[in-house]
């Protein structure tokens, strides 16, 4: 028996979890559909895609809490922990549901919204994801936000939501301070080296920006996905 990964077992977990979480999925679909319908009825003349996107983002970010909040509960978590599958397989099922299935549900609803808008009101919603524009940053931001939730769900036994929000708050505060310091430094666009002033080449600033982006993407979401896996492995109940 392969103790690390079996595709068959992973599919079995997915199947059984999707069935077990069917009420939560139904809630997602109904809530998003109701929101979509409300938008169609109230804002059909000037429907901004972003309005729908905000709801989608919120649903995607809170998904791990909706589905896996009781994962380490002393009583409720036993069936999950004792299920004969590896921690990696359980984590893969967790990842697929949060990163693929939930966003897909939102995307399908978005398509339905666009089509319905076109069909009933003859108003097309021109919205295309542009990977070179701000959309890329927004999508990575959503994935990053969701990765924080995933790490939070897998890291804390109790009060997962509050503790995760607390960490986000502290992190945001730290980021704000660092950014302030950075802006303060580079507003002058110069360094003092051995008593001489040097102008900073704009190329360097852009290079640094790219470098920071790569580091940020490595942490959010990749690093936090890894954190969620290792936390799942070490939890007791």
């Amino acid at each position: 028996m392969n103790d690390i990964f079996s595709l068959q077992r992973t599919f079995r977990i997915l199947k059984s979890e999707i069935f077990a979480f069917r009420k939560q999925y139904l809630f997602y679909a109904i809530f998003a559909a109701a929101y979509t319908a409300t938008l169609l009825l109230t804002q059909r003349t000037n429907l901004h895609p972003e309005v729908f996107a905000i709801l989608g983002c919120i649903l995607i970010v809170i998904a791990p809490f909706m589905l896996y909040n009781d994962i380490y509960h002393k009583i409720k978590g036993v069936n999950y922990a004792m299920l004969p599958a590896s921690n990696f397989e359980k984590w893969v099922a967790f990842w697929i549901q949060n990163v693929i299935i939930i966003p897909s549900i939102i995307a399908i609803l978005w398509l339905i919204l666009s089509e319905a808008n076109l069909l009933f009101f003859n108003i097309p919603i021109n919205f295309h994801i542009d990977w070179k524009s701000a959309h890329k940053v927004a999508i990575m931001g959503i994935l990053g936000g969701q990765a924080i939730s995933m790490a939070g769900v897998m890291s804390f036994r109790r009060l997962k939501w509050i503790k995760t929000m607390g960490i986000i708050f502290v992190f945001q505060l730290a980021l704000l301070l660092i950014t302030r310091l950075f802006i303060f430094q580079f507003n002058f666009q110069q360094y003092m080296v051995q008593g001489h002033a040097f102008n900073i080449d704009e190329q360097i600033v852009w290079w640094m920006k790219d470098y920071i982006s790569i580091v940020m993407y490595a942490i959010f979401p990749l690093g936090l996905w890894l954190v969620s896996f290792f936390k799942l492995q070490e939890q007791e109940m």
Partner: protein
Amino acid sequence: MIEIKDLSFWYKKKSKVFESLTMTLEAGKIYGLLGENGVGKTTYLRIVAGLLFPNEGSCVVMNSDPSKRYPSFLSKVFYLPEEFEAPHQKADEYVRHVGPFYPNFDYNQYAAYMQEFGVNGQRKYSEMSFGQKKKAMIAFALATNTELLLLDEPTNGLDIPSKGVFRRLVARAADDAKCIIISTHQVRDLEFLIDPIVILERNNVLLNQSVETITRKLKFDVVAKAPANALYVEPMMGGFGVVVPNEDGEESKVNIELLFNAAIANRAQFAEWFK
């Protein structure tokens, strides 16, 4: 089957649940795990199941480290806790989804057990009483045919006829390859089922012996007048229930309640006798 060596476990370091616990449990037996409230019976089962990790020492179950929670290990163990969260679905649906994870799971066996317990698998767990849920979970646990079955207070919440069915099914399910550990306070429910008997005390094991060894050393009797050498005396219908050293080699039937109370009252002596 289970090799525990110098195992220490604590939730808070100042009050250890187990300290240098060493014990071996073998296949082919139905162990009765007894102990006062709070001595760590549930903790013990959770360590063996891999839900809790030892702080010191080792716990090896079927040549695996339970804390790794490998599928090859988990597919050979079923742990039924005293309190459990019944899934929000029909009993049969749950079993159809989870059963295939256990290589020796037999659906027909499960259906037969459900029938013996008189539980309808087409009902949702949420519509069942606590006792019915427990019966459905016991039926599933037995039908997984795992080598190690850990049952925490399985008869709690069962009605009188179901306790009989439980004893019958467990006795039928037991074979030379399986080890069944039943933690219980309801010793009368399982008096003729469990052998050996394990009594846990705070931090360690007070007794881990077969019924045969126990009756070779101790005699259980009901007498009109308590003898002077009695280890434990308890008034009961028809006189006094007593536990005395078995000096004449006469065999008697173990009264687990008396045994337990005698062990608690004579810890040092029991530790010496049953080393």
